[in-house]
Each structure stands twice: as structure tokens, then as C-alpha cells.
């Protein structure tokens, strides 16, 4: 009598397994794309902050990664909203939030926040690469020459004074970009923090927790990509730069760790109605993901590795990898873990990521879509790199030694 097939069309039934008592309409509605989305925007924010450290605070050791982190954050930024489109059940209507934005909703501000940030990143890239673009526009012919000519936007002035002005503008943009990056990501945290029905999300610390984990993930991905990029092109990897990034990483790691710790301690101490189910989540169901991967491997271990003096390139690289895994796990734990507690506080929803794309829904919400989304920023970076080479200003051995003291 039960037609099984109709339930496949119920959004959520494909990947949700219920346990004990959950409300009949309860499924995992925010799924893996809502894990990927904050992960990507987090990387954007982190990478941008790193490049700003060079442009605003003049951290000389960061010079080799300054351009790279900027362009990479653009690549990430372009991809960041795509998981949302995968997530919507009516993606072609996404324009509606611009037509009739309802500003009480945190998501409605998305367009505004996103476009502002996009404008800042794009213009900063333009100013940073302007001398390079102009040079190529004058020298190159053919298609590439045309691309560069368009990219000059008609401005060929590379005189001393003009470049000096550029420098100033870059500084301002990089400085304005820091709060904008913080806002972009803090706002993502707010989307979660404002959902009052999920005990794990409902904390005013959410924007800050998200921001800190964003910065550590962004810095970590820069360490990884720089090291890998240099090794692949057989260029010299500057230990001073790595150490400088590692230092930034370790500092933000401490803050991130403290914020996340306070949050849990607070929940445990006030022990509100939902603490029973929350503690079961923390210490049993998600114990491995949260305690082992997110905290021990993703935070405590890298902290120890980075705090032992004389950080080597390998040690920084390993810590960065651990941090990335930890941050991804954190997004997972927050999104999936948060929703896996039934709103009835009397049951659980288990999430099973669809692997095989047996239907459109299974593909859209499944593993392959996720892999595509996670790889896409690197593909974009690869393409951007053809036009705007990001690793041209890497240090030679001497320069690296010189920068160490600064």
C-alpha cells in the first residue's frame, strides 16, 4: 500500500536516517553544501587577511604569498555562492532575494555583502597587477595582448607618481578589505547563530568562532598551496615566509580554540534543557569527529607543532594540513551535527552523504558535486595564474635570508 517511490521525491528522505523520536517532517534540510559554503567563504576571508598583512602592515616576509593569496581569494570568492545554488530547491529563482529582499533575514544581505567584497578584491587585484598588465598590454600581441589591453581599462600611466598613488590606494583597499572580510564571514556565522531552534548554533559567539576558524583555514591553505606550488615549479621555498605565516596561524589558532572551548563549556555549565542531547552528540555520536578530528587533530596538535621553536617547512606544512582538515570537520560538525539533534530533543537524524549519482537529486546533493565545488577554485586559480602570474615575486635564497631579520 505504501508507494515507496513517492518518498524519494521528499526532499531530505534520500540522506536522512531517523532514530528514536523525530518530528514527522524532520529531515536534514541543510546538507553538505551548507558545509562547503562556509568553508569556501572562510578560505576567502583568511587568504585576504593574509595578503592584507603584507600590504597594510608591511610584513616583508609575506611578500611571496601576497599576490597569490589575493588572486586565490578571488577564485574562492567566485566559487563561494555556487554551493548555495546547488542547495536551493529553486535555484533559478535565486534572483528573488535581490528583487524582494527581506532584510530581517540574514541571507537577504548576501548580495550586498558579497558584491561589496567582490568589488574590493577585484579593484585591489587590478591595482596590484597594474604595472604588469600595462607592460604586457604594450608588449604582447594577439589574443593575450588583447586581454591585457582590455584589462588596463585604458589606463597606461605607470609613471613614478602614478605608481605611488596606486600603492596608497592598495593600502586603503587592503585595510578596508579586512573589516569587509570579517563581515563577509562573520555574517555567515550570524546565519547560523540566529537559528534559534538549533542549540549548537544558537550562540552570539558564532560569528567570531566562524571568523577565527576562517582565518586559520585561509592562512593554512596559503601555506599549503605556496609550498606545493614552489615544489612543483622547483623554486626555492622561503622558510622565513613559512615561519611568518605559521606565526599568524598559531596566534589565530589560540583564539579559535578558546572561543570554541568557551562555547562548549558554557553549554555544559548552564546545562539548559538541550544539554542532555547535546552532550550525547559531543561525547558519543560526534565524539570522533568533534573531539578527535576537530579539536585534537585540527587544533591542539598543530598548536603544539607550531609552538615548538624553530618551525621547519615540513612541520608548518603538516600543521597547515591538519588545520584544514580540522576546519572542514568543524563546518561539518556545526552544520550536520547541529541538525542531527532532533528539535524534539528526543531523537537523532543521521546524515548519509549520497555517493553514487543515481538521480539528479543524488548528484546535486552528493559526493561528486562536493568534489567539483572543492576543486573548482584551484582550477580557477590555475587559469588566473596564466593571465596574472601569482608567484613571480617569490624570494630567492638571499632575499629570503634578508627578509628574515625584518
Amino acid at each position, binding site marked *: 500500500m505504501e*508507494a515507496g517511490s513517492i518518498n524519494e521525491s521528499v526532499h*531530505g528522505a534520500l540522506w536522512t536516517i531517523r532514530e528514536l523520536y523525530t518530528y*514527522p*517532517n524532520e529531515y536534514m534540510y541543510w546538507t553538505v553544501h551548507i558545509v562547503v559554503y562556509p568553508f569556501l567563504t572562510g578560505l576567502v576571508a583568511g587568504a585576504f587577511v593574509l595578503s592584507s598583512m603584507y600590504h597594510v602592515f608591511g610584513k616583508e616576509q609575506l611578500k611571496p604569498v601576497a599576490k597569490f593569496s589575493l588572486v586565490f581569494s578571488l577564485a574562492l570568492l567566485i566559487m563561494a555562492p555556487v554551493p548555495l545554488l546547488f542547495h*536551493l530547491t529553486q535555484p533559478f529563482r535565486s534572483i528573488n532575494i535581490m528583487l*524582494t529582499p527581506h532584510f530581517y533575514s540574514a541571507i537577504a544581505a548576501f548580495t550586498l555583502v558579497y558584491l561589496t567584497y567582490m568589488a574590493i578584491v577585484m579593484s585591489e587585484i587590478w591595482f596590484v597587477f597594474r604595472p604588469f598588465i600595462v607592460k604586457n598590454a604594450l608588449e604582447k600581441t594577439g589574443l593575450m595582448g588583447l586581454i591585457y589591453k582590455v584589462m588596463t581599462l585604458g589606463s597606461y600611466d605607470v609613471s613614478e607618481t602614478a605608481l605611488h598613488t596606486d600603492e596608497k590606494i592598495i593600502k586603503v583597499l587592503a585595510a578596508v578589505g579586512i573589516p569587509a572580510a570579517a563581515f563577509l564571514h562573520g555574517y555567515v556565522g550570524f546565519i547560523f547563530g*540566529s*537559528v534559534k531552534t538549533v542549540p549548537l548554533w544558537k550562540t552570539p559567539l558564532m560569528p567570531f568562532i566562524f571568523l577565527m576558524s576562517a582565518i586559520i583555514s585561509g592562512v593554512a591553505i596559503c601555506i599549503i598551496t605556496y609550498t606545493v606550488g614552489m615544489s612543483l615549479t622547483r623554486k626555492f621555498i622561503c622558510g622565513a615566509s613559512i615561519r611568518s605565516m605559521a606565526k599568524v596561524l598559531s596566534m589565530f589558532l589560540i583564539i579559535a580554540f578558546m572561543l570554541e572551548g568557551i562555547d562548549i563549556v558554557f553549554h555544559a555549565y548552564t546545562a539548559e534543557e538541550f544539554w542532555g542531547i547535546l552532550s550525547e552528540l559531543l561525547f558519543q555520536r560526534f565524539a570522533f569527529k568533534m573531539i578527535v578530528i576537530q579539536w585534537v587533530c585540527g587544533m591542539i596538535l598543530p598548536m603544539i607543532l607550531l609552538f615548538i621553536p624553530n618551525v621547519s617547512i615540513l612541520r608548518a606544512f603538516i600543521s597547515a594540513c591538519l588545520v584544514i582538515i580540522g576546519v572542514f570537520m568543524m563546518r561539518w560538525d556545526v552544520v550536520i551535527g547541529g541538525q542531527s539533534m532532533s*528539535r524534539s530533543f528526543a531523537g537523532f537524524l543521521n546524515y548519509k552523504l549520497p555517493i553514487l549519482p543515481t538521480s539528479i537529486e543524488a548528484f546535486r546533493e552528493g559526493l561528486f558535486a562536493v568534489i567539483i565545488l572543492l576543486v573548482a577554485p584551484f582550477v580557477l586559480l590555475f587559469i588566473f595564474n596564466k593571465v596574472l602570474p601569482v608567484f613571480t615575486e617569490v624570494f630567492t635564497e638571499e632575499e629570503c635570508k634578508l627578509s628574515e631579520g625584518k
Partner: protein
Amino acid sequence: MKLTRRELLKMGLISICGAVIPVSAFEVFKPEALASLIHPFSKKKRWAFVVDTTKCVGCGMCVKACKLENDVPFYADIQRTWVERYVQRKGGEVIIDSPRGARYGFTANDPQGRTDVPEDDISKGFFVPKLCNHCEKPSCVQVCPAGATYKTEDGVVLVDRKWCIGCGYCITNCPYFARFFHPVYNTADKCTFCYHRITKGRKTACVEACAFGVRKIGLLNDPDSEVFNIVKTERVAVLKPEYGNEPHVFYIGLDHIVR
């Protein structure tokens, strides 16, 4: 008198500020705003619902009627209204279930499919029908980025199927989980208090289907309304008041084990 553009702008700005500030101050201090802290009955036309759980037998006719009336695929496991069964054993253990939203009713002593709960071990058991609470402060409406879900003048919360982008924010932010994605339209969906019927003077499908008089729909502040008289004179409770949504489905005979 001749005005330059600059002066005109300045005066315009001053007069706008001058108008806005007193008006907004008024908004904060108006007595209704303060009085609303203790929730008096709204003077406006306002739909509300009463569920007398003491009379419910768990037959599930209301769930069935709702599905058929409102074009929600019958066999799909999502429902605009559902009935929950609460069983408390003598040892204190609480077992809750609502198999298929109870659209086939409860016909056996098998809470959560368990057969190890003998009848003489049950200290209390009862049914609780649920539906969207048409909250006065609906947290679902608050978070909809597209403005696709909204509250009508008479207090009913609706979804515009043509405008919903399917982000699921509203579903996530409803403390009662009254919402779901409609399997055919792929947009957020939920109970409408049968708005198409009540605005034409009829009762909701579930109210009409209930043979035991468990469910009642009516207007608050209407002296002839049974709902209003119950809410005014009897001890009623609402579900999860701690979320601050001010739900407008009032329950008779609620218990502390009800989630």
C-alpha cells in the same frame, strides 16, 4: 524666495529627520507596545486554533483529511498536520512516536514499533495533534530572505509558492518543525489553517474530519467564537513558549512530557 540646490537639500534633510525622530520615539513608547509584554488579546481579527488533547483518540482522520484537501501527496512522508502518541511507562520512560504522521491512525499498542511495552506497564498515554502554530512572531517569516513566506493581516502564516527559492531557512528556524519541502512544487510548505476555506466561512478540513471535537478553529476576540471562549476562560497552554514565537494553537490537557 529663491533657494539654491544646496539649501533645498539641507532643508529637506532636516525636515525628514525632524519628522522621523519623533515618530520613531512614539513607536517605542506607545502603550500598546509596552502592554504587549503581557500579551493581551489582539484587537484585530486574528485566527486561532484550539486542540483538546483529552478528547483525541488517535484515529488520524484529520491527517488524512488534510492531505486530501490540501494537495499534499498522500503517500509522501511529510504532513501539514500530524498526531503524536505519548506513552509513559511506570518506570518513567517516555516513548513518543508518530508513524507516517499517523495518517493511518494508531491501531496497535506498538509505540515506536516496540512490542515490549505491556499495557499494564503504561502509567499514562495520550495523543497530541500538531500543526503550524501560526505564530504571532513567526521565526519562519523572520528569516525568509525572499519574503516568500509572510503573515496575513488576520494572523495566518502563508508561503508564496511562486516566490520561494527553496533555501530551507524557514524550515530550519521553525521550533515545531511544521514545515517541509513540497515534493511536487519543491517549495516550502505547511499548514495554512485552510485559508481557502476559513475565509469563506467554512471550517478547516481537519476540524470537519474530527469526529470527537478535538480541533476547533475560530477568531480571537470574537464573542461568538468557541475558540475565543475557551482561550479566555479555560486553562490552555501553548507548545514551546520559550522560543518567543507566541504560537496561536492553544492546547487543553498538555503535559510536561510533550515535546
